[in-house]
């Protein structure tokens, strides 16, 4: 699917996201149009980080939270409401993850339910590799990387979702990719045992 297609979604209402967002504070019912347009993408966002079952439960929470946040929002320059919705979805996810695992465990990973991610990576080695690549990143750097890789946002859009400047986003994205690549390459040739060990370490934590 082309990026622009998924960002625009499909809906009968021809008004742009920017127009809808501008009217939202006075016409909350327009959130229904945004839902029809973007719920599928927001669901994928949630499912990638918390699994499909939790994503179904959390989906409406995101749009309901967006309803009360709608008085102070405008669309990203690209015209899409998605970066804004992803930003809200991240907050909803963080709350969800805190409820799953109380923060005292130390190794919490707000905004990401690793068990749910693991569920869809069949090979044990692959799970270990993903974790190795991402676990060393700061939460916000990882989120930045994934918004670009998984949600197909531009670095500038991802910056809007995370409320950081586009310039900062670009340099942090570069840093995150370099770091993740290095972690992956470090595993190369080290054989499945190392990966399994890494994975076991995560399970222990």
């Amino acid at each position, binding site marked *: 699917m082309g990026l622009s297609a998924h960002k625009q979604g499909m809906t009968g209402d021809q008004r742009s996201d920017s127009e809808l967002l501008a009217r939202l504070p*006075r*016409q*909350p*019912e327009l*959130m*229904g149009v945004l*839902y*029809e347009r973007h*719920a*599928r993408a927001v*669901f*994928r966002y949630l*499912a*990638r980080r918390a699994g*499909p079952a939790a*994503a*179904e439960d959390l*989906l*409406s929470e995101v*749009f*309901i939270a967006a*309803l*009360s946040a709608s008085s102070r929002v405008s669309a990203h320059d690209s015209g899409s409401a998605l970066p804004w919705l992803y930003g809200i979805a991240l907050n909803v996810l963080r709350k969800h993850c805190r409820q799953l695992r109380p923060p005292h465990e130390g190794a919490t990973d707000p905004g990401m339910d690793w068990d749910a*991610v693991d569920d*869809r*990576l069949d090979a044990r080695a*692959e799970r270990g*590799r*993903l974790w190795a*690549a991402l676990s060393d990143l700061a939460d916000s750097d990882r989120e930045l*990387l*994934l918004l670009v*890789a*998984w949600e197909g946002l531009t670095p500038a859009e991802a910056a809007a979702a995370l409320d950081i400047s586009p310039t900062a986003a670009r340099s942090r994205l570069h840093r995150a*990719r370099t770091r*993740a*690549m290095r972690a*992956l*390459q470090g595993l190369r040739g080290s054989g499945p045992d190392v990966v399994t060990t890494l994975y076991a370490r995560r399970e222990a934590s």
Partner: protein
Amino acid sequence: MNLLDDLLSSAGRVPEITEEGMRRGRLNLDAAIAQASTERRPSQRKAAARWWGGWRGMTVIGATATVAAAAVVAGAMVLPSSPPPKTPPQAAIAPRATAKPKATANPKPTADPGAAVTLSTLSYSIDTTTSSTPAATVLDAAATAIGEQAGTTSEPNVDWSEPYFHTVQVVTCNGGTTTDNGWQTRTDDGVGEGIGGACGGGGGMYPITAGFADFYGLGNQPLTESQVDQLPTDPNKLWPLLEGFDGDSLSSDTANPHSKASTMFQSIWNLITSEPLSPAFSKALLEDAAKIPGVTVEGKYTDSLGRTGTVLHIGIWTMAIDTTTGQVLAMTQNAIPGVPICGGKVPAHSMCQPGGSSTVVYVSAQLVASVPKAVASMIAFSKAHEPKVWQAPPPTPKL
């Protein structure tokens, strides 16, 4: 594609949302939108608002309540039930020949019209000073007051001058308080349907059809709009129907919360608070209420909307009524162990769960020209996706 992108690409593959998931999410969102648009909309229709029957003279209040900030004194109406007199019900059926006390012609001012009262700070109190006035006198006074109100029709229902009957209630249930907005309309087949707050449901809404236990009920029997039209406005002809609908299995012991008397009281309150009734019919209902044995006077009710009333009690019901207007101001239902409240049909997300008690403060009720757009779209959406819950049940067999 490099190592990292390959890995992320395979890890990012997730199933698409199911249609059921989309639909469920939309329903939840629509409920929140409906609540939001109600809260944002002040009393724009104040000038056009038509008050009906017992509701005349009340003020439309901009509903800006938030659940968290609500200050309704939960449970304040839960009163100890005093032992009621053991009068056999038959004794009360005899027509009453006593002269009714004349109610004051001018209803006392209620909330100042246009005053910016917010429901979030709605509170009420009860002064339990004992009164020597019998409950029957109180109810007869209320009946007289409501009967004096303007109204041309002698049918139970008003001629609906506007398509929607909009009610605003502040509901306290199990410690939580919310503002419920309800909209009902007559359908072409005379069944009637609507949408209302989910029994103190924290913003959730449910469809109302004639099959819903609390809808226009007589006892446990739901009634359609057409059936309400057929009810007699002569209190003596109405009484056997009120009595008969409760079935023969109900106890005639008025101390029993399941007693026939208590259930008749409930039927009357159900009709008065959920329907735009004509003054003539409201009067008949209150006159019959005055004949119900075992009702006691418990004190004086005052709320922050500036309204006062007399508190009556029977079985699990405690009700505040304004004797100068006939308005029912508030009602508390105490739970009976093992018997769920809200007619037993409690949505899962409702805070009104079995074992608690619920208090409803009736804020306003009026016929209006339209429902908020979000509510209309929610009804349309729900009808398209959940047709079953909108199906009217077969008519109540006996009338």
